[in-house]
């Protein structure tokens, strides 16, 4: 009964574990894998197809770039935090609403 009730929670945990396991496995057999972003690899593929070196692709519109990986990862965390706050806010709002309606 418990197992059926929490089947999606269990499935999600198993899927994440399998995903992590797959990562451990691939990173051990692909010794030189850098786990760069697929965006970056896509861009170097463009350079390969056109024969124009990657450095020669200039932004068409001026663009601010985070000065370091630390700043970038911080801003990514900010993005996730904004999403998390919004999700938590409304789930909590629903929960409170349900409680109020029960009384």
């Amino acid at each position, binding site marked *: 009964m418990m197992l059926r*009730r929490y089947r*999606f*929670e269990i*499935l*999600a945990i198993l*899927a*994440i574990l399998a*995903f992590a396991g*797959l*990562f451990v496995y*691939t*990173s051990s057999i*692909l010794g030189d*894998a*850098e*786990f*760069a*972003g*697929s*965006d*970056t*690899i*896509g*861009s170097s*593929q*463009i350079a390969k*197809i*056109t024969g124009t070196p990657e450095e020669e*692709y*200039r*932004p*068409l*519109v001026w*663009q*601010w*770039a*985070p000065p370091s990986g630390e700043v*970038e990862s911080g*801003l*990514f*965390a900010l*993005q*996730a935090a*904004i*999403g*998390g*706050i*919004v*999700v938590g*806010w*409304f*789930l909590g*709002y*629903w*929960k409170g*609403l*349900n409680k109020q309606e029960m009384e």
Partner: protein
Amino acid sequence: MHIMEGFLPWQWCAVWWLVALPCLALGVHQLNKVLSADREALPLLGVTGGFVFILSSLKLPSVTGSCSHPTGTGLSAICFGPWITAVVAAIVLLFQALFLAHGGLSVLGANIVSMGIVGPIAGWGVYRVLRDTPVNMYLTVFLACAFADLFTYFTTSLELALAYPAEVGGIGSSFVVFMGIFALTQVPLAIVEAIVLVLVFKYIVQLRPGILIRLKVFTEGKIVAAVRDA
């Protein structure tokens, strides 16, 4: 799935902006209508849209030895349709273009078309086909979310292949190469993302089934049965 700033010729940037803009206009129009018709639509939009923010910030390593991120757009596409989802995705992509140098303002149109329009349309299409069949509601959500994710990367590959056909084999052979980079990396991510979004959908069903019934996300019968089952 981002095409990086400067890596798309301006003609293609213009084409994709021209595709994206009317879709965004339609999305804003629908958004106003839905939000003014039902006060409870806003919390649902917050939860489904919030997950687009969260999931698209997670860059995860995959089997190909490179990293990519899920899109999280499937749930929003199911609840609100692809056009409203395009608006949500556009906000996230604008944030990433301005502050993270992921994508950029000239390629924003192309990135909105892949993550905000074609991906959500694919997911929404799967959902619409299965919605009124006896197929399990959660399986429908799973498939829709996985398709929304995969078709985003499929579209990025197509956009790049159209702009950069290979010397030998043209667009087709370029497409295969870009699919190898983007789509293959994405398969395990799409599966995990879809399972997580099924779990989120279950919580929405348990907490607030009424709004899903009013928005006709699934038939009342399916939702009531799921609430009783929980």
